[in-house]
């Protein structure tokens, strides 16, 4: 789960990493209170999970009250569904650094990434000037050693008091990374201020979903999702992505579903939604179809090839969903795997025409979406 900047910064502070003074506001009225607690110039930072907020004009530096009120209103009214703004004291920046920690799946180690060019897109830099990126691999059983912190600090060209302060930041960031079961923890930019302090200018924290049971719950709220449907699906634990094409996918397995997505594109069709009801969700056909029917798609395409997600159970689910929801659009089925003979019988008895070849099913769905009779 990706957290918002303000949540990442809450974690930073909990682990002793300094952040700019700031107040989180939920509407334009709360700006007065936030301004009372900060002094100009201030930065209005829209709390959204997407990258490139700066380029999209979602972060504004303002120098007086009138400007702050005007721009705050604009942000809350923007097309990006801004629900929270972090109002922060602007910082006197001397230098900007990049610092992050993630896992290296090949070495099975934690990997610290640092760079003297803060504020840049690290992926771009990794391609264009890979030599500027500093990497330090940490053995998860030994933990981060002092010599490794010094390696990173010296590579960044830090000395004296700054090196000392940076060492504390890195040690604390590593503690936060491990304690939070993070996939990624990132400070970009990490400010070195005019008066020689080190402050986290921005924050990213992505927590491993598989570790939910041992992490404090952040609660699933609508803020984390791009659409109502994606939010609703997430509450059911159903992987779902919203698009605006013609064919609703109701498939099983991440690999098979993305393959069907590809095949639809190859055949000149368009996808209305990606939806997986395999794995633990294979008995949720009714909920899955309900989500599909909320789209104005022209056809629902069901493709499965399951082992534990039994074909007969999924076929029964589809038939049950049809009788309960009475869908207003055709359904193309290609349900295979464990007990597939029973599945075919169940579908035929319900008046459906079961298909067995994925490409054939995809072509059928694309044809229907283009106006052919089912």
């Amino acid at each position: 789960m990706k957290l918002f900047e303000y949540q990442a910064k809450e974690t930073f502070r909990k682990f002793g990493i300094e952040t700019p003074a700031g107040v989180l506001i939920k509407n334009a009225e709360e700006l007065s209170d936030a301004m009372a607690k900060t002094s100009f110039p201030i930065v209005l930072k829209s709390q959204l999970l997407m990258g490139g907020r700066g380029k999209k004009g979602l972060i504004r530096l303002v120098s007086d009250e009138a400007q702050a009120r005007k721009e705050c209103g604009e942000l809350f009214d923007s097309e990006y569904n801004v629900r929270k703004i972090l109002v922060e004291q602007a910082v006197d920046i001397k230098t900007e650094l990049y610092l992050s920690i993630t896992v290296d799946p090949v070495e099975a180690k934690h990997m610290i990434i640092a760079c003297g060019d803060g504020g840049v897109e690290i992926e771009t830099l990794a391609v264009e000037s890979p030599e500027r990126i500093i990497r330090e691999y940490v053995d998860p059983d030994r933990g981060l050693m002092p010599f490794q912190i010094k390696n990173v600090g010296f590579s960044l060209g830090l000395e004296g008091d700054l090196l000392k302060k940076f060492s504390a930041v890195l040690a604390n960031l590593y503690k936060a990374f491990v304690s939070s079961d993070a996939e990624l923890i990132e400070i970009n930019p990490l400010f070195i201020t005019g008066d020689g302090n080190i402050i986290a200018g921005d924050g990213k924290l992505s927590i491993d979903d598989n570790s939910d049971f041992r992490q404090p719950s952040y609660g699933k709220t609508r803020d984390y999702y791009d659409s109502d449907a994606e939010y609703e699906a997430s509450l059911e634990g159903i992987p779902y992505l919203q698009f605006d094409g013609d064919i609703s996918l109701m498939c099983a397995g991440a690999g098979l579903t993305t393959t069907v997505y590809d095949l639809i594109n190859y055949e000149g069709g368009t996808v209305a939604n990606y939806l997986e009801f395999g794995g633990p969700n294979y008995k949720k056909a009714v909920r899955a179809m309900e989500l599909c029917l909320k789209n104005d798609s022209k056809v629902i395409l069901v493709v499965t090839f399951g082992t534990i997600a039994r074909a007969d159970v999924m076929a029964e689910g589809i038939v049950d969903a049809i009788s309960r929801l009475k869908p207003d659009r055709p359904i193309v089925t290609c349900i295979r795997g464990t007990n597939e003979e029973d599945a075919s019988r169940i579908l035929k008895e319900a008046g459906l025409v079961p298909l067995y070849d994925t490409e054939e099913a995809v072509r059928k769905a694309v044809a229907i979406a283009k106006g052919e009779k089912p």
Partner: protein
Amino acid sequence: MSIFIDETTKVLIQGITGKEGSFWTNHMIGCGTNVVAGVTPGKEGQQVEGRDVYHSVRRAVDKVEVEASMLFVPPRFTKDAVFEALDGGIKKIVTVADGIPLHDAVQIRKAAMSEGAMVIGGNTSGVISPGRAMMGFFPYWIERVYKQGRIGVMTRSGSLTNEVTAMVVKAGFGVSSLIGIGGDPVPGTRFAEMLPLYEADDQTDAVVIIGELGGTMEEECAEMKGLGIFTKPLVAFLGGRTAPEGKRMGHAGAIVSGGKGSVKDKIKAIESVGGKVAERPRFVGDYLKELLGDRVR
């Protein structure tokens, strides 16, 4: 001889008395697997499918010889169960658990590497050599997918594996050994680490990789082929070629690989060493025919 397991491999089942454990133990035996014992703490003295159950791995290995362990253990207890198997001296471990915490997965792979063991999974269906043995859960009775033959298959997926393997069989081939390394970001074993086993296997003529976007596992396989460590024909199928960017984490993967990991890079890497990348599952069979010609299937 197949790779990883065959009908002689002595297999222990950790979590044998659970619902999944006992159900699939029955099927593993049905497929030909040599299951020698099981472990469930507190259940020593019971039997499952005629196999003795022990309190712990240590108590099991004291009584019977064990070469491989199959884990039917919930994700949050998987790290402990893997370490227990390693402690028992077992060098081949398969875990099917879906939902192993990321930081646990890092420690599991690290431990396996330092002890010279091989952990397959998690988030996988496991390992199968059709007609011989399996560790995990495969519908081995579906002939049009799990037909014995001479093609090695490595995969990150479940349902997609059935889809692609069915195309391999439809083209007239069969499977020698199928290894599901699993869909987690940090699998215990990586594709490239399996290639030397396929290379040495005289019953494998070619290898099919069922991969996906992100990470560098396909590029690592290309590197093995480029170095001549793996010399047999290689065909890859990559799902998600047209998938829009930015919906998954992406970030860390992109940094790790320094620009690798896009489907374009993967295709380039595999093709540059003479491998083939299939655009559709059906083409995997076509490429195998092209690469193997009239060789025995």
